[in-house]
C-alpha cells in the first residue's frame, strides 16, 4: 500500500532549487477569506450572541443528529422569541439536517463548565465579552 504512495512523493531540496541571487518568493495566506463553515450553532450564535444574557452556544455532533445548546442567564420573552425565530430560519437554511435546539437557563452565579462541553464552541461569553 505504502509503496504506491511512495511513487508519488517528490523530494525537493530548497538549496538546489533556488537559483543563486534569486530572491525568496514571498507568500501570504488569504486571511481575509478565512472563515468558519456556517453550521446551525454558528448561525444561532451570530443571531443571538449580541444579547448580554447569552452565555454560551455550542454544538454536539452525533453521527445522525446535531444538538445545538444555548445557555442563557435568564429567558425573557424577547430573547426566547429571537431564539425560536432563528431556529425556524435554521430549519429552512439547513434542509434535511436533523438537529434540535436545547435552551438552558442557568443563573449567572452558577458554573456552566459541565454543560458547555460541546464538539464545536460557537460562542462563549467568558471569552468574547469585552474586558472592562
Amino acid at each position, binding site marked *: 500500500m505504502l509503496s504506491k504512495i511512495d511513487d508519488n512523493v517528490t523530494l525537493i531540496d530548497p538549496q538546489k532549487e533556488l537559483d543563486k541571487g534569486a530572491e525568496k518568493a514571498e507568500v501570504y495566506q488569504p486571511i481575509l477569506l478565512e472563515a468558519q463553515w*456556517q453550521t446551525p450553532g454558528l448561525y444561532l450564535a451570530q443571531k443571538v450572541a449580541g444579547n448580554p444574557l447569552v452565555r454560551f452556544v455550542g454544538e454536539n*455532533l*452525533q453521527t445522525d443528529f446535531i444538538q445545538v445548546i444555548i445557555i442563557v442567564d435568564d429567558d425573557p420573552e424577547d430573547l426566547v422569541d429571537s431564539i425560536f425565530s432563528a431556529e425556524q430560519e435554521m430549519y429552512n437554511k*439547513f434542509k434535511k439536517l436533523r438537529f434540535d435546539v436545547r435552551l438552558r437557563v442557568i443563573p449567572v452565579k452558577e458554573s456552566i463548565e459541565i454543560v458547555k462541553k460541546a*464538539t*464545536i464552541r460557537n460562542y462563549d461569553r467568558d471569552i468574547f465579552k469585552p474586558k472592562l
Partner: protein
Amino acid sequence: MLPVEPSIISFLISDMVIQEKGTNKWSAIGIFDKIIAIQFPFVQPRVALYIRLSDAEGDYDIRIEFCDDNDCILAIFEGIRLSIPSRLHNPDLGITTLNLPIQKPGKFYFKLFFNGKFAKDFPLIVEDYSKR
C-alpha cells in the same frame, strides 16, 4: 442584465492555499479528495478550496454548501463576492475554511452556487479507518 453563468474549470480540495505576492499565482498544498478518520463524528479543522472559473462576466455571490449523499446540508460557506470585468479573465480564488463538521463516513459534496443558482458539485469521500 444578469451575469453570464460561469464555467468551473478547476476545483481543488486541499490542506492549504497560498497566493504569491506580485504574481498573484495560487498554490494548493496537500490536495486530497478523501479523508480517513479514526472516529466519528469529527470536525476537520482546516479545509482549503481553490476555484478557477472561465466564461464569467459580472458580479457573482458565491455560496458553497457541504452536503451528504441524501442532499442534507451540513454546513454552508457564503459571503464571497466576485466582480469580473470581462470574459477575457479566468478568475481564480482560494478559500481557507475552518471547522468543517463531518458526522459519519460516506460520500459528501461541495455544491457551488453562483447568485443562488446551482452550478456544480464536487465529491469528498470520507472513510472509517477501522473498516479498511
